[in-house]
């Protein structure tokens, strides 16, 4: 958990943007800890595509003692990002669909985004994402905080689930 210590020796006003606040008292100052949701992100990658849709994957570990709630994501590389899950389609094929409640990561848990499972869905890719490119992605947490990470583009033949949303992508 990223912890910002703000000394409150005088009449300092802290603007608390996050979901929880804890207080401790030291010898001569009172400190207030402002908790910002944060995930430890490892092995982020994105499937290289020329246009249309693609997926972002990786390991998102919650090493804090507070639940982290991802409610959205964005990137300059695509017009829109949705949080997706993969489910069995009625005809036996794998289908993707939006997870409307977002992803929650309990304390000590790791959220794995992977082909065939949960992932960030980029829709309306702006320009070709070439193998080896790096794209910046911003996660949005409940409460308004954000966290940016960089995903490396890899050529990948999987992650071909059909999209069942009502967007304008193919």
């Amino acid at each position, binding site marked *: 958990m990223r912890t910002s210590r703000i000394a409150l020796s005088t009449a300092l006003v802290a603007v608390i943007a996050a979901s929880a606040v804890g207080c401790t008292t030291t010898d001569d100052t009172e400190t207030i800890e402002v908790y910002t949701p944060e995930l430890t992100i490892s092995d982020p990658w994105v499937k290289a595509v020329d246009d249309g849709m693609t997926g972002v994957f990786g390991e998102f570990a919650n090493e804090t003692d507070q639940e982290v709630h991802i409610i959205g994501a964005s990137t300059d590389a695509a017009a829109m990002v949705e949080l997706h899950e993969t489910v069995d389609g009625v005809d036996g094929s794998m289908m993707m669909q939006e997870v409307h409640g977002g992803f929650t990561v309990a304390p000590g848990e790791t959220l794995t985004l992977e082909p065939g499972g949960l992932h960030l869905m980029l829709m309306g890719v702006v320009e070709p994402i*070439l*193998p*080896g490119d790096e794209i910046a992605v911003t996660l949005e947490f409940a409460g308004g905080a954000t966290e940016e990470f960089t995903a490396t583009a*890899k*050529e*990948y033949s999987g992650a071909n689930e059909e999209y069942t949303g009502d967007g304008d992508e193919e």
Partner: protein
Amino acid sequence: MPENPSGAGIGRRRFLLGGAAVATGAAVALTAERTGVLPGSRQAELNAAGLNGARTIEFHGEHQAGIDTPVAAHASFVALRLRPGQDRESLGRLMRLLTDDARRLTSGRSPLADSEPELAAVPAGLTVTFGFGPGFVSAAGATAPMWLAPLPAYPTIDDLRPEWTGGDLLIVASADDPVTVAHAVRMLLKDSRHFASVAWRQDGFRRAYGSEVSGTTMRNLMGQVDGTGNPEPGTADFDAAVWSTDGWLAGGTSMVLRRIRMELDTWDEIDGPGRDNTVGRRISNGAPVTGERESDDPDYEATTAAGFSVISPVAHISRASDAGRVSRTIFRRSYNYDVPPTGEAVSETGLIFASLQADVGEQYIPVQDRLAQADLLNEWTTPIGSAVFAIPPGCGPDGFIGEGILT
């Protein structure tokens, strides 16, 4: 380059070392005379790590791994041909991807987007080494060393086939487990596919891990002890012979790869003394015909009672010898190949001859010139492939191979 034995337990079938090899049951005593050429420290390492699959060799460092690190049992040499339109930017993306794959694979971790991540869990001493051909350096807009070009034609010996010759990017993956090598190569090539296509692939092997004391000079499939006299990694002689000090290649080296077919059907016609005479060494133990042990120096001056040289002046070692030359030597790191034959042949066999040296022009070509002029062994060997690569230096944990010309 350090070798990191795993913490795995001592294997149950640990070989015994020391003056007297103690063999139990029907086991064969393997502490052959030829191990006498090894430094004592190497022998003491025998199988001490026990289970070998978890062993890793550090990828990062001043030099790339796979040059001065212990030679693994299996290696795959893959040459790629760049697709049109590659430039410094795209090659930078390529080498960042391949470096990331290599650093993960060599530490037993799966690369990003690995479809078979379970196969990465057994590194078995995996090394991945990259080399740049003339086309790569040109596409990167960098200046190539003078020697980075095809070798001179050797019409007296060469029968080069285009399918085994040239290449823009070399990937060498070696490990003591062929499953590990296959997975590593597959992963590296998947990440290369956007940028390049496979020009050729040569798979080679030596004795399996544990069959002999690690570091024993290999035998090629003509039966010859092959690689005697190599400079010992970690010595000043090795450093001077192998590592370049030149510009972006400082800390790197060069690799000449020759695919040398062995004419085993006619070699079969040659009896023991004829074979010894051809090489100038005894097939039995690699000792020069003027000596007793592999480590003995050949005596090119020795003569028979009738006045002839004991070592023929056209024997392989006479022609390949450094004797009387001021130039630095070469370092050989070769592998056997044995692939299915065609037609009526019963074998298609040879050597993936890999020679490392700081300067191809100064060190390699003079030797190759002399061997092409005269060498009894040429009767039974035919170079059918040839390629030259610059091996760039190693990189740190945050760097990538080739960063010296790609950033």
